[in-house]
């Protein structure tokens, strides 16, 4: 991989409008039962403008944006289609709520090699339409080198 790419910032993604039904679909998949994800009145009782997304929801946005970054030809990752997640962090400024229109800006934070496989770390910043910082994610993926890399 091209270590000279570390620090590279990719253009912000197209705006993503967070829909109520998408939040519920995601909440059902992770078995999130909190009423603030399901019921607008319950969310408002907690001070939110609408139902809010479960805490791991921003991965819906960051995964695609980071996946695109893995395919950056300048990076030169070995086999971009076989990768697994090794680490993930999200730090929030405020919860994501239905109606938010979010963009993701991805920065390549680091590259490494473990067991013959490429390892990449991205930092992704989510912002609302008015520029407000919503949350920041940090993702580490192992990209398998089919020519003999070890599966952890």
């Amino acid at each position: 991989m091209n270590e000279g790419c570390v620090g590279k910032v990719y253009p912000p993604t197209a705006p993503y409008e967070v829909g109520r039904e998408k939040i519920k679909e995601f909440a059902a998949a992770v078995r999130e039962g909190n009423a603030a994800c399901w019921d607008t009145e319950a969310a408002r009782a907690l001070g939110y403008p609408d139902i809010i997304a479960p805490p791991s929801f921003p991965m819906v946005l960051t995964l695609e944006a980071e996946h695109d970054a893995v395919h950056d030809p300048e990076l030169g990752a070995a086999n971009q289609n076989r990768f697994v997640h090794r680490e993930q962090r999200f730090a929030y400024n405020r919860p994501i709520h239905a109606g938010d229109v979010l963009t993701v800006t991805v920065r390549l934070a680091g590259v490494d090699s473990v067991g013959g496989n490429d390892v990449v770390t991205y930092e992704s910043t989510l912002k609302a339409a008015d520029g407000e910082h919503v949350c920041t994610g940090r993702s580490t993926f192992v990209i398998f080198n089919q020519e003999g890399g070890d599966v952890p």
Partner: protein
Amino acid sequence: MTVETAARPRYEDIEPGFRLPGRTFRVERKDLVRYGGAACDYNVIHWDDRTAVAMGLPSPIAHGMFTMGLALGVLTDWAGDAGAVVDFGGRFPRLVPVPNDGVGVELTVEATVMEKLEPPRLRLSVAVRLGGSDGGKVLTMPKTIVALR
């Protein structure tokens, strides 16, 4: 649906060492497909047996973020607020193969309050084990920050 404010834990009442009610989740292949769809994660390693076998795995593996999502739900359920978990991060030290056998695997979530930060924030340590409480850790989140109300 109403929110039972009286049921929510209060910062003042919680001390380090407090263990949250744990939970065990059964996870089958269909749950991975459902998560993959909801999360727009179509990585074949989470559903395709041929790919998994070609990579030397016994079967497709659970999404790390599915495991993390289940664990976070234990915290939001306890806090009574899906917006309470303000900072979390973790490693996936072991893969979780999920056979397509109609039985699947069990994931057990444990969470303990480690430290009281500035009100109303607590630092928790969270772990997910494959199987029961004596199973190997598949996710560790040692610095999870929960803001109570």
